[in-house]
């Protein structure tokens, strides 16, 4: 195949798809309800912004590069929440590192494993599906 540059018609065309959204969920957004340090349930929050309004922050990484990322813990333009009970076999006392140093590797690995298991289950719940769809529809209406 030749991969020639396709001829361009040089017509100015108005954009139809603009300013889509950013959605955040996860341990930086949710609230963990603990008993004796054990996470029993999670108040799961889904937050959304139009892309231009999403709160971001620059952070210098350990290799010296700067990374721009969505800043967790901020108020969403739209938000939906629900409570999810953690199954007994997936409960833990581990904590999300929140990128604070020093890290406890064993804690981080356990929490990372658990949080992915939780998210996998949460995404299958009707509460998540309803809340997620609601956030998107609200964002599309902005």
């Amino acid at each position, binding site marked *: 195949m030749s991969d020639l*540059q396709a001829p361009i*018609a040089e017509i100015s*065309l108005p*954009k139809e798809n603009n300013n889509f959204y950013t959605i955040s969920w*996860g341990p930086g957004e949710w609230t963990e309800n603990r008993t004796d340090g054990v996470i029993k349930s999670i108040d799961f929050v889904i937050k959304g912004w139009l892309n231009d309004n999403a709160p971001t922050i620059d952070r210098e990484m350990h290799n010296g590069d700067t990374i721009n990322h969505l800043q967790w813990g901020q108020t969403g333009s739209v938000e939906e929440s629900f409570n999810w009970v953690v199954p007994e076999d997936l409960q833990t006392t581990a904590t999300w590192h929140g990128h604070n140093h020093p890290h406890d590797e064993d804690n981080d690995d356990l929490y990372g494993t658990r*949080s992915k298991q939780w998210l996998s289950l949460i995404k299958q719940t009707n509460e998540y599906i309803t809340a997620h769809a609601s956030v998107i529809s609200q964002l599309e209406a902005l």
Partner: protein
Amino acid sequence: MAVPTGTVCLTDLRTEFGDANGGNVCLTEYYAGGSNVSSGITNGSGTAIPSSGTLCLKSNFAGAVSVIPVVSNTQNYTGNVAAEFSAVLAYSGGFGADSITYQLVMRTSTSGSNYVATLYVEETSDANGIYNSGGMTTGTLYPVQTVTFTQGNWPDSYALDHSVSIQTSSGVVNTGTSLVAGIGENYTSGSGWDNVTFTLLNPTTNTAFRTTHLTTGECFTGTVIYTDTYSLKFIKSGYPTLTAVTFNISCEQDMSHSGLCP
């Protein structure tokens, strides 16, 4: 449909172009560039409908059509998204980066005496794809939308209008989207092809467009989901732009960090 070429009535204009303002139909509602008639539309003789001044039902509107006529416009995929791509990255030591890349290919072909424009999605070796609930094979073209025109109504050009929405679980993770040059076909889009109008070449040709999502994270365990939204638009002189379809492609990047975060 088209405005008749014989006797033309105001109701013919309302049928063809609509009546955005409602109420009684008035000829002055049908200036080009107004609420009912897009700029640049022509009558059946190829003369532009006036944007001001005197309007004449027959001489200005006879044979005019409000959209580019198509023989058919068919969605080829099932479900909510045209395709889903995923990539998994397990990493340690702090920094991780991974990408998902796929291609769109515009193919022009013939069907009898008609010309056909078909947009395809193609998996690359950079991610695993799903199309119509089944796994994709790298390098195979999977149809998204097929639009058939008569040769006389073959559009002059087309464009892919792109936007992206992002979903991410908490963490130090950066998302990136690049529209780059497609490869492996007759023609390439070049980079930065969002909403760029390309000449719709006569059959048979293939033009490749490539989208890359690069996710970088530091000690990030979680998921990033990119939802690409595209509108396929056709342009023909004398007609308003035809948006043949708007569709989504989903890309999910799963990252797991373990061990020391330096």
